[in-house]
């Protein structure tokens, strides 16, 4: 059993980097606009953006089969967009409209699209892990070959749910890929001060599962490792943990001014903007030029803006909606 020592097997990402860049651009545009709209009071509730972490969402989300499962976190917009959640109905949900993907009953922290395997953002830290293990059980039991992804932050790995879920996935050899986005901060606290074992991969040996750390700001590296991990799962080799090292640009929630973060740390990570890392490689290889990349980004911004304008015009949910969907029949 090895953790973080085995060389990555060669695995091509299923989509070209240009497309991964486009997904990151969409997430960046969406999150940037959502942060502004929240600041301006147009979006109610709590909002947690994933600015700076786009490469993890795009790299994982676009390296899976269409029917694979994804369970994610309160910081889940990027994961949903990368899995193809429809932008208009997602934005409408954040605006709390009746036409939102959850009819205005979920909101930013609970956007979900089960028809596309998206089991939802989830506002309980660590909850995605047991749920993804259960999705893996279903896939195995029903012999579907589907892989279940659990996204979670390094702040979740001190929860009992993490340990119990990893152990279950291991003993039952489930097709589950556990994707830890290590953005260094567990809400307001430096997570390195909350454990003696800050590298999440180092915990996995205790459960007998394989794990690898990856540069979470390098979309190509994330995509390659995810494709490899998913292929392992489909081959019946059991669960795999990916620790994607990245950084949260904004606060834990929008409105958190992050007084607990050193300026130089923020600056250093912003220098490693995942979109710029990818853009540099794309232009260096000649796959794209700057103008093309700029145009991808402006198209993404236009797409998002259209969803905002649409959401603004939509009516609030019908009051009767509050009573619907408590029970099924």
């Amino acid at each position: 059993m090895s953790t973080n020592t085995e060389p990555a097997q060669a695995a091509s990402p299923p989509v070209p980097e240009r497309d991964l860049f486009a997904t990151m651009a969409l997430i960046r545009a969406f999150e940037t606009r959502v942060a502004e709209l929240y600041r301006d009071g147009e979006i109610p509730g709590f909002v947690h953006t994933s600015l700076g972490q786009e490469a993890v969402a795009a790299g994982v989300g676009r390296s899976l089969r269409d029917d694979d499962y994804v369970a994610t976190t309160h910081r889940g917009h990027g994961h949903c967009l990368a899995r193809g959640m429809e932008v208009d109905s997602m934005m409408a949900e954040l605006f709390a409209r009746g036409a939102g993907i959850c009819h205005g009953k979920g909101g930013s922290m609970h956007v979900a699209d089960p028809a596309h395997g998206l089991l939802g953002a989830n506002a309980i830290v660590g909850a995605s892990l047991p749920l993804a293990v259960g999705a893996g059980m279903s896939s195995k039991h029903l012999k579907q070959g589907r892989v279940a992804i659990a996204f979670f932050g390094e702040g979740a790995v001190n929860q009992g749910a993490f340990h119990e879920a990893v152990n279950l996935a291991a003993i039952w050899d489930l097709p589950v890929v556990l994707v830890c986005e290590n953005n260094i901060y567990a809400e307001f606290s430096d997570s390195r001060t909350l454990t003696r074992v800050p590298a999440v991969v180092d915990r996995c040996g205790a459960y007998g599962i394989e794990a690898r750390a990856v540069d979470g700001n390098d979309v190509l590296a994330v995509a390659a490792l995810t494709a490899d991990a998913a292929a392992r799962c489909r081959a019946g080799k059991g669960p795999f943990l990916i620790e994607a090292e990245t950084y949260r640009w904004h606060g834990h929630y929008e409105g958190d001014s992050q007084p607990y973060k050193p300026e130089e740390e923020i600056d250093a990570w912003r220098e490693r903007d995942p979109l710029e890392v990818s853009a540099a490689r794309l232009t260096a290889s000649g796959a794209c030029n700057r103008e093309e990349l700029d145009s991808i980004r402006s198209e993404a911004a236009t797409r998002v803006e259209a969803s905002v304008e649409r959401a603004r015009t939509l009516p609030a949910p019908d009051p009767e909606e509050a009573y619907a969907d408590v029970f099924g029949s």
Partner: protein
Amino acid sequence: MSSAAEAPVTERRYIEALNEGMATAIEEDERVIVLGIDVGAGGGIFRVTRGLFDRFGPERVIDAPIAEMGYVGAAVGAAMTGLRPIVEIMFMDFVGVCLDPILNQAAKLRYMTAGALEIPIVFRMQTGAGKAAGAQHSQSLEAWFAHVPGLKVVLPATVADARDLLLESVRDPNPVVFVENRRLYGTKGDIDADPLPLGKARVARQGEQVTVVTYGQMLRTCLAAAEEGDAALEVIDLRSLAPLDMETIYASVRRTGRLLIVHEAVQDFGAGAEIAARVSTDLFDELRTPVRRIGTPSVPMPFSPDLEKALLPTSKAVSGAADALVAEG
């Protein structure tokens, strides 16, 4: 379900009826799994799942590690993705370590996704004082669950209901908390050829003077009280707290004008309070006397059998209270 014409009605124990219900559920639907601590090869600590492992194999009857948060959460994830788990929590008191999957996931995700997620799952849990099991293995917490929108709460009091309500709970598209009182496990009775649906209360004994509403183990206590006291008791077995069949209660109270509610759970903030409030509001003019409640006093259940006896509602207390109501007016 067999028709009344074939198979003569035979007496069996409550525990056997539960086992039969699970076996039928597993047989009739390949998506049904049984999951819990020691439910497999060991047959369960109360032998409720005895024989199921040998009959259906380790893929359908699954032993979980002692990690309720993990395996109950995984069962919820499995229910979201196509399985219909019957998950066992060995003692109801243990929900303290796995409440999140029930409270925040199973109960809420259908609603938060506007019905896009279905969570057909049965949480079987065993409880009951009177066996000197101490405060951490004796508490009746059904009112907690009835207080959570999105959960059904089912409490079979008879052998027939042990089988039929369990089967109905498995077939139900909603999460069901299924409460078994272990003092009922050894009781004997017949299977009902024409079972009442889940959500309907049953008039277990007809009487004209006092309506006694109860459920679970206390049904036997109330039926005994009806034999012992002077008042003519109409005993209603609720069978489920959610849904709560108020119509059957109202119909009875309209005739008797007197209501006594009896449960083993602590009286304060118990199910009796809700029923008393509804009847006092809706049938105020038809009540001859104030509504009375009998539950366990608000103390943790002590270990000593003598102390347990001093706290638990007795048939004498029930008949005494009923006679007092008749004397009052």
